[in-house]
């Protein structure tokens, strides 16, 4: 097409590691027209960032471009010399990174960093550069540009830093803006603000945008077209509305079914298995081993990219032309009802809980210390077999609350009653009994599982601590590991030999092996891919039904909370601002902060006003 701004053709990229060549992206093609927004979604390892970095010619040293062309207004960036690249990169094509904290120089005021871009690319200097920088800061809706200009990165919040990064990218009025997970590192409210900023900027400036994210909701808010990447293959590309409402590729369908949504409580469907990383995966359909509709042909032949009759919509599936063969039978959205409340005394009753941190004296206790109240006057009850979700942004005190309930925080005021007994008054024997009955699952299984221990050792340790004999331990470890969907072959493996989802299953097994009554789930799915998250949530509900335990779920993700919580506690700055039955909080929120949080969750439904 003559009016293509950026035209990526047949791009294949491999990474070389340990003498082996590992393909990361295979025959990726994307045509970007002026003024359009294309969203690229995919889970970890899908090749989406590789595609962006290749477009900027910023691939790491061990990456090899196997084939393809990246045409910017007709000239091939992959074969361009350094000086040509310098006139295009950062000037005509600008990039915004995931983490604004590492992308900004901490030792320079941000104004000078933007002015530097202006000087470098446009030769604008002195007063003119300062004026233009103020303009840019105003463009990204930062109040008081002179103050932001003179600020160091650490003096700005995460959202402000990301705005500064956007201002810097816009400095030369680029034709193409590449955004690599620009909102992933941000809290939900800030994420919503940055998304709406990008949306309004897109109306003001003429740049075309490629928006890469693993968050389908965020992409749905912005994109005109959406491309879906899986294991290095672009499996589907088409108009956003068609991709979201009528996805064609089985993976896209699975992905959308796995995304939790605020609108209703429903059973999420995960995609079984994990994405293949085998270098040989491209000889057949990359999704074949996880797809419900796989036939022999899928395992032997690589499907072509099929243009669908609806126009501008392609799918890499053998059955793209026969869509009726890859539909699931109806009735896939069976709802899960809230657990009926069990009568009797509550399992956990917390009243007037406050936790104080002392910040300060770094040197031998000299100097003054400052008290910070991380949790302020929190009260709630948790009945048996129920799920209480504690919701809040980072710094809201929700993780401190979790640690307090496990008696890991020293300075605690208030009462925590477990079956009517104050856990802070426990003696050693009581505490040992309590530790068996209250377990925790952490956010990041890579950090929560000791990398030097095998699965059997990890899961068996809580039992060994309780003095369970080795033979009985072996039985119970085996049974628990099978209950979380792993098999005996996993027992001798080290965490590094497992995928992220498998690791989190091991962490769950470790928590459930002592048959606890209370399990604290601290962001249990945040570090996982969407399709894996759904299977873990499913597993959690299954385990609750099996063991009859209660969950205290700590999460920042309201959509996830919606799917599993019976009751919700909204926390902000250490204090509870709203609490009650989940149904009521989600349908009739009272506190303005709760409403803001709910409004900020990017949904798969397309924004009406665009």
């Amino acid at each position, binding site marked *: 097409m003559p009016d293509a701004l950026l035209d990526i053709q047949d791009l294949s990229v491999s990474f070389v590691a340990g003498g082996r060549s590992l393909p990361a992206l295979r025959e990726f093609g994307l045509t970007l027209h002026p003024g359009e927004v294309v969203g690229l979604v995919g889970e970890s390892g899908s090749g989406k960032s590789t595609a962006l970095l290749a477009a900027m010619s910023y691939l790491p040293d061990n990456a090899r471009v196997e084939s393809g062309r990246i045409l910017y207004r007709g000239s091939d960036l992959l074969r361009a010399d350094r000086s040509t690249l310098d006139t295009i990169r950062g000037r005509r094509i600008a990039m915004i990174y995931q983490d604004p904290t590492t992308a900004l120089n901490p030792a320079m005021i941000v104004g000078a960093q933007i002015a530097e871009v202006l000087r470098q690319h446009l030769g604008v200097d002195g007063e003119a550069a300062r004026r233009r920088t103020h303009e840019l800061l105003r463009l990204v809706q930062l109040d008081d540009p002179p103050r932001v200009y003179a600020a160091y990165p650490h003096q700005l919040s995460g959202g402000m830093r990301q705005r500064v990064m956007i201002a810097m990218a816009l400095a030369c009025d680029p034709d193409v803006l590449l955004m690599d997970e620009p909102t992933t590192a941000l809290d939900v409210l800030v994420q919503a603000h940055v998304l709406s900023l990008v949306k309004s900027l897109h109306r003001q400036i003429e740049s075309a945008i490629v928006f890469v994210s693993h968050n389908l909701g965020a992409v749905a808010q912005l994109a005109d077209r959406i491309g879906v990447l899986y294991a290095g293959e672009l499996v589907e590309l088409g108009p956003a509305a068609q991709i979201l409402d009528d996805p064609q590729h089985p993976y896209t369908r699975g992905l959308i079914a796995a995304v939790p949504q605020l609108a209703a409580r429903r059973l999420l469907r995960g995609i079984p298995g994990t994405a293949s990383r085998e270098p040989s995966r491209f000889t057949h359909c990359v999704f074949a081993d996880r797809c419900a509709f796989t036939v022999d042909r899928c395992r032997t032949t690589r499907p072509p990219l099929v243009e669908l009759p609806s126009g501008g919509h392609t799918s890499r599936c053998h059955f793209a032309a026969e869509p009726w063969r890859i539909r699931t039978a109806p009735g896939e959205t069976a709802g899960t009802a809230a657990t009926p409340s069990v009568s009797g005394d509550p399992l956990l009753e917390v009243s007037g809980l406050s936790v104080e941190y002392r910040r300060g004296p770094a040197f031998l206790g000299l100097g003054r210390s400052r008290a910070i109240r991380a949790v302020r006057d929190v009260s709630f009850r948790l009945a048996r077999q129920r799920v209480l979700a504690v919701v809040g942004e980072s710094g809201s005190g929700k993780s401190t609350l979790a640690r307090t309930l496990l008696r890991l925080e020293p300075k605690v005021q208030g009462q925590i009653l477990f079956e009517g007994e104050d856990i802070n008054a426990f003696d050693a024997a009581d*505490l040992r009994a309590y530790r068996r009955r209250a377990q925790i699952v952490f956010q990041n299984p890579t950090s929560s599982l000791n990398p030097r221990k095998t699965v059997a050792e990890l899961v068996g340790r809580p039992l060994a601590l309780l003095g369970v004999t080795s033979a009985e331990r072996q039985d119970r470890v085996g049974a628990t590991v099978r209950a979380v969907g792993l098999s005996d072959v996993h027992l001798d493996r080290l965490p590094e030999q497992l995928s992220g989802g498998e690791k989190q299953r091991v962490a769950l097994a470790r928590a459930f092996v002592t048959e606890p009554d209370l399990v604290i789930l601290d962001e249990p799915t945040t570090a996982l891919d969407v399709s894996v998250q759904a299977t873990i949530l499913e597993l959690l509900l299954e385990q609750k039904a099996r063991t009859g335990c209660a969950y205290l779920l700590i999460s920042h993700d309201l959509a996830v909370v919606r799917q599993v919580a019976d009751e919700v506690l909204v926390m902000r700055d250490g204090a509870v601002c709203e609490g009650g039955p989940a149904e009521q909080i989600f349908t009739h929120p009272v506190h303005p902060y709760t409403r803001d949080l709910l409004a900020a969750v990017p949904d798969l439904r397309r924004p009406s006003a665009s």
Partner: protein
Amino acid sequence: MSEPRLAPEAPAPRANRYLVIGATLTGLTLGTAVLGLLYSPYAPAQVDLLHRLAPPGAGHLLGTDRFGRDVLSRVLAGGWRSMTLGFGATAVGLAIGLPIALLTGLHRGVLDQAVMRVVDALLSIPTLVFALLVIAGLGPGLGQAVLALGVAAAPKFVRIVRSAVLDAASQDYVTAARARGEGALYIQYGEILPNVWAPVIVEASISVGFALVGGAALSYLGLGTQPPQPDWGVMINEAQKYISVSFWPLLGPALAICASIIGFNLLGEGLRDRLHLRRSVRDA
């Protein structure tokens, strides 16, 4: 959800070369020490006044010293003493440094601060001077030298291992261990220690080299191995007085010390690169 950043491959060949050369030299010196325990061409203390300060020849492959004693035999016989200095001092240093690092890295507070300031103060004293201070209290001798060099090496072990402990202690598996009621000793030695072996091994192999130098220096000063017992440092000490007459007695022990020091340092460097490389590939 960023793409895998795989470790660049370039450092691998160089690291392997370090490792190979280091391991070969280390093996050679260790072999010499072991051989010396089993065999020597002459008795190490056998005096032959007719052949004093002889150059290398058929009878004496590395020549003879000022008393006509066979240099090769003395290099062989002195090997185990030098190795004892190197390994013994490192073991003593680890035995003191490791528990302190694990304890203070895990339980941070006033005690940790106090210990670390003391460690910083000790680190500011040169190792050999520190060892001399300890010897001043213990008196000269091989065992005393091992102890002195070990004590002097301990602060460095505390510093280096502690940084690895701090890193491990911030991981959730430590919190998980606390949450299930593990004791402090299990957390230190069962959870954290297995994850800090890499820097410990690297530092230990480099420290063996240092202790060899230190041991040779102490023996040279007459504070380590006591003459007439041979030890590479003692031999150098004796030979250098006659260097204007003949440098041959110096050559054997000097080569042996050089080989072992270079060997252990290269081995440490190689291991460092190797373990680091392993880790970055695994993270990818």
